[in-house]
């Protein structure tokens, strides 16, 4: 079964070209050309992954990202023309899982897409993992605090699981990038930082004073205190 990818971009040539690249890699592709109506399109197509341009007419990609995230945990990869502006951070904070910077290689694009569509890291294990007050059901992709179910995106679940499976082991940002995002040779720590923040806002009682995912200054993150 081929994965379906929704490409939201207002540039006709780029949209078609990305479609050609993805189809040649065996994906099935759906298109949308504006920010307005992107959510309806998403709901109608229910794709496995969304490629979302940041600069869109009508509604920015960041708003679209927030709308999709409100209803679904489907992986979203932003396409951005800027690397140092706030676009990247804004997109990630709005819930995007990853981003690629224009102009990108077809190889890079498909590698990122595959990394997001891959079965979760460590998800081959069975049973449950406990971390603090949380219980992770690996097969069901569920996190519970007691009886209360916490809704995480697959990426957030994957990040929490990676940390929780080796409690008290300190993960550097580069390690997490490789394990969760499938990156090598990428030192963009913003990706990790923003997602840890998002994760904390969902699982911690007090996100400013985290107890489950803690920061080890100058090194990285780990699950648990102490």
């Amino acid at each position, binding site marked *: 079964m081929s994965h379906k990818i929704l490409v939201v971009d207002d540039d006709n040539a*780029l949209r078609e070209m990305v479609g*050609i*690249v993805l189809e040649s890699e065996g994906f099935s592709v759906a298109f949308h050309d504006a920010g307005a109506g992107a959510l309806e399109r998403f709901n109608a197509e229910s794709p496995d992954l969304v490629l979302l341009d940041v600069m869109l007419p009508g509604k920015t990609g960041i708003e679209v990202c927030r709308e999709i995230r409100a209803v679904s945990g489907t992986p979203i990869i932003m396409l951005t023309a800027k690397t*140092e502006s706030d676009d990247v951070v804004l997109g990630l904070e709005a819930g995007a899982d990853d981003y690629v910077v*224009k*102009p990108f290689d077809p*190889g890079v694009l498909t590698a990122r897409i595959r990394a997001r569509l891959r079965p979760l890291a460590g998800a081959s294990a069975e049973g449950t993992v406990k971390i603090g007050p949380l219980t992770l059901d690996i097969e069901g992709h569920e996190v519970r605090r007691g009886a209360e179910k916490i809704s995480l995106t697959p990426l957030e679940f994957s990040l929490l699981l990676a940390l929780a499976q080796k409690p008290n082991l300190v993960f550097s940002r580069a390690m997490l990038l490789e394990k969760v995002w499938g990156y090598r040779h990428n030192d963009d720590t913003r990706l990790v930082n923003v997602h840890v923040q998002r994760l904390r806002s969902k699982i911690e009682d007090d996100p400013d004073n985290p107890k489950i995912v803690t920061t080890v200054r100058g090194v990285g993150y780990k699950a648990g205190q102490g």
Partner: protein
Amino acid sequence: MRFRGVASWAISLFRRYLQVRAVFSTVVISGIALAIVGGFLSYSIGGGLFSTRQAQVLAESERAVVEVQNTFSASSVSNEVALQSLMNTIVPSIESTGTTNSRRVALLRSPGQATGQILQSPISADLDPTVIPTALRSKVRASAGNLIYQSIALRVAGAEHPGIVVGAPVQIPLAGSYELYLVFDLNSEQQTLDFVQRTLVFGGLILLLMIGAISFFVTDWLVRPVRLAAEVSEQLAEGALDRRLPERGEDIIAILARSFNKMAQSLQSQITQLASLSKMQQRFVSDVSHELRTPLTTIKLAGDMIFAGRETLSPPVKRSAELMHDQIERFEALLNDLLEISRYDAGAVIADLEMQDLNGVVGMAIAGIEPLAMSKGSEILIEIPQGPVDAEMDSRRIERLLRNLLANAIEHGEGKPIRVAVGVSESAVAVTVTDEGVGMTRAEVDRVFDRFWRADPARKRTTGGTGLGLAISLEDTHLHDGWLQVWAKPNEGASFRLTLPRRKGMVFTQSPLPLPPKKAKKKGDA
């Protein structure tokens, strides 16, 4: 050295303040003028007083001498006792005592007469006859009855008073030649003169003080607008372009203020115009770079698709696909560099400083450039100190910078070895990248950091640099408050030295590594 401190403070005050100089000069010149006038006044008053008194003294003396001579001539004393008593009445009759305006009298016998002296010479009680100069006495003896006088100093009650001695010869019957001396004390004239002089000095000082104060206020009044203008132009120079001088009245100062303000106004409008132009241009470069990215992405994706399928194409089309593929990458690099430099121009770059081991960063840069070095046959020789070389840096930028220096060295190194050295001191870390290739002339070295500048336009470009690499490297270095320096000699090679402070804000005056670098060690030495 308190005194020296005060003196240097005074000198600096004098140098710095126009007003201090003006007041000082006015006071000094007025002081000299007052001293001349006062001196002249004092001299002529003194002279006047003295000559009046002298005339009076001479008249009195004349009378006294005539009186004494008449007394003796008219007397009919027959014996020495009577003569003595007559002589004794002479002194009290003409002397006048007291501490001021006193007149002392001495009737002295001329020496060198045939008969011996029998009679006592009557002398005023408080007169010391030695004050009468012997020169005067001989003149008196030689005179034919005229009055002879001379100024002398008198000691009265421990103080020295000016005085005049007047002498005349007197013939005394039975006793022979005598000399009558009248000693006048001029102390009261001296006191008058002293008083006049004191008054002059005191008045002069008050006048000087007033002149000083007046010149202070006048110069202050004149200098204040000038000082204000100086302050305002200083502020203008520091960038406060909206500062202006107050314009009041119609005088020369108001004209100065008006033209100054006009100048500031045109300066401000030109600077704002230039700044907005330059901002527009930076914005344009940045926008263009961004706008090019979307079509470039499409071209790149399409190019890669064609490149991936090149084996199915006819040879000319296949070669075209390869060329296109390479040039798209070059185009992308150029675009990235343009965007980077436009970020620097817009001042939008912030360093992401972290403690890093420079050795590690150098290692990463070398690892990244190794394939290029291999393809050009350049060996990279490394000389790094033991242990970590920690410094605060934006490692992504420094690695890019070093990679760029290495790429340059490989391109111009003609396949000869490239040496990389790392050095460290208390306050700084340094890297040198040295090649032994074509080198550069002095004029070329001066332009090496210019944008899009090429050492030799005719040279074949092989590594496809963008021409912005060193310009960006220099900006990266400035971002770290470091130095990027170059040494080169034609046909001997070139060496770039990067020096960075170990911590942000650390001041260093010397790089830990020399430039030009030490002569290459022979292979095997290391």
